[in-house]
């Protein structure tokens, strides 16, 4: 067990390093550098002294070769320092740390809804003997993955804020303000959870041990929930891990729709003004959360299925 954990930890660290490197490379393609963006950014275009630009470039280290810049930045990033935001001047780490709780709250609530309703849908659809109910339920998930998240959000606002007046249309205040964005975010995620769980439940119900349980006289509910669901939930769990990244990403869009403060709005703002350190921080942060969630999923696996640790030759890779 310990070796399994250590190997997964090492993999996670490697992925994070690589994610940092990729984001560094991508953002380095940028024509020019942030300093000229800063200098040319103002609409009141007073010409800026070239010497001053040179000094700023030196201060930020843009006059050094790319590889040295990279090592320099990587060293700082290892100590949790992603530099300062170009637009606000605050440190990237503290900006993200301040925005994170709201986003985690939103994504967590959405994940909870997605698992409850997506999983519930799959269980009911595979349990029921009524053809119309099964068909009806199973036709919902394909619908859910086809609808743009931001559009769901806007429609919810239109129906439940403007027409019905039940929930606030925007802002971060309280539980009421969390309901609509969380539902909007949960629909595509829940749809995928439902698809995967339904598919694996159907396969699991054909297994020999289900027949055995039936032969021993176990009730349908017991077979469905205790025998089949436990085994069928492994693929769904993997998907939940993978969906963590998608949830974070979709929250960028949803937070914009609902004008909520959080990681998403920080990101959208940073992209708009080409705030490179901040965008890079967001990319690495996003991967960090993704990696941590998948690490947790991988560590939960052995509890559900002890065979996984025994078969340690199996490469537990992402996706």
């Amino acid at each position, binding site marked *: 067990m310990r070796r399994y954990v250590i190997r997964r930890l090492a993999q996670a660290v490697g992925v994070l390093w690589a994610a940092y490197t*990729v984001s560094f490379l991508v953002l380095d393609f940028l024509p020019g550098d942030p300093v000229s963006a800063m200098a040319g950014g103002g609409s009141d275009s007073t010409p800026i002294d070239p010497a001053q630009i040179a000094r700023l470039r030196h201060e930020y280290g843009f006059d050094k070769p790319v590889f040295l810049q990279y090592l320099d930045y990587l060293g700082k990033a290892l100590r949790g320092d992603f530099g300062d935001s170009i637009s606000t001047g605050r440190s990237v780490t503290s900006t993200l740390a301040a925005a994170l709780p709201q986003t985690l709250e939103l994504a967590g609530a959405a994940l909870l809804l997605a698992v409850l309703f997506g999983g519930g849908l799959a269980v009911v659809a595979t349990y029921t003997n009524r053809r119309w109910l099964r068909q009806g339920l199973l036709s919902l998930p394909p619908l859910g993955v*086809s609808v743009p998240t931001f559009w769901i959000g806007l429609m919810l606002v239109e129906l439940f804020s403007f027409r019905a007046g039940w929930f606030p249309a925007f802002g971060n205040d309280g539980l009421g303000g969390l309901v609509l964005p969380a539902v909007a975010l949960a629909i595509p995620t829940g749809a995928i959870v439902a698809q995967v769980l339904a598919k694996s439940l159907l396969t699991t119900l054909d297994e020999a041990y289900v027949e055995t349980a039936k032969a021993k006289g176990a009730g349908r509910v017991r077979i469905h929930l205790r025998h089949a669901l436990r085994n069928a939930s492994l*693929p769904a769990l993997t998907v939940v891990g993978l969906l963590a*990244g998608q949830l974070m990403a979709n929250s960028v869009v949803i937070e914009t729709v609902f004008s909520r403060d959080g990681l998403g709005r920080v990101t959208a703002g940073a*992209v708009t003004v080409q705030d490179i350190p901040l965008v890079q921080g967001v*990319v690495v942060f996003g991967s960090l959360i*993704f990696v941590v969630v998948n690490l947790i999923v991988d560590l939960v696996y052995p509890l559900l299925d002890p065979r996984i640790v025994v078969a340690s030759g199996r490469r537990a890779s*992402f996706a």
Partner: protein
Amino acid sequence: MSQVVVDDLGATALGAGTPAEAGFEPGGRGAPRRAVRFFLRRPGLVLSGVVVVLVVLAAFWPGLFTAQDPLHGSPADFFQAPGGAHWFGTDELGRDVFSRVVHGAQLSLKATLIALAVAFVAGGLIGLIAGFVGRWVEDVLMRFVDVLLSIPALFLSLALVTALGYGTVKVAVAVGVASVASFARVMRSEVLRARQAVYVEAARSCGARWYSVLIRHVLPNAIGPVVVLATLEIGTAILAVSSLSFLGYGAPPPAPEWGTLISDGRNYLANAWWLTALPGLTIALTVLATNRIARALDGEWARQR
């Protein structure tokens, strides 16, 4: 990626199910009758086909559907609810929303196709080289692909948009790069499968050069599932492109890109629901239709045989 994840996991995690075989050419006699029966049993699939054909027609010949100008309207007719004269109503400048949606199909379809082309070509090449060359090249390339997979797609796209700038094409490239990884993985696994086939061994032993083995034997036998993946990714790409243009990184304002239409309409949500509801419905219908067709290609047709 959503649909792909589902199918991928369904197949790998359960150890059941075959990889998507590209078996969509009807073989032998009775094929037409079989095709008719296949489609008659699936009205949803036929409807999806109709929707996709309509969208493609709208993209190339918007004049077929509407004669109204998408960019200039009569300001006197602003905020008219949907009706006979304006099917999707009019916006704050009196422009016909239906006409804007029809003309927007061109931009959105173009972006989707560019995104797919980037992902298909780049991902396919990476997978092909990794699978065919093997050894350390494969290790390096596939580790790189793993890293791409661990950065959430939208964040990767956003980083690319930051670097490249705004515009339909740039957004499309950003979306395409974000889905390179899944194409590379499928291509590699298919190449590995094809490379071990007996006919490849036979070709080798007949003295065929590596490039002729690659192009005449391995590639044609490996490309099918990658094409299926491309159809599965159409819907994802449409959604990703419209998300980015909703955030305001797509075509500049007067252009009627689908995501931009929705973000424009957002300001008038309280008094003109049709400005957001109907373009969004168009996106959803298009994605639903392409997903349905992709699922049909991905096995349904082959399984029925």
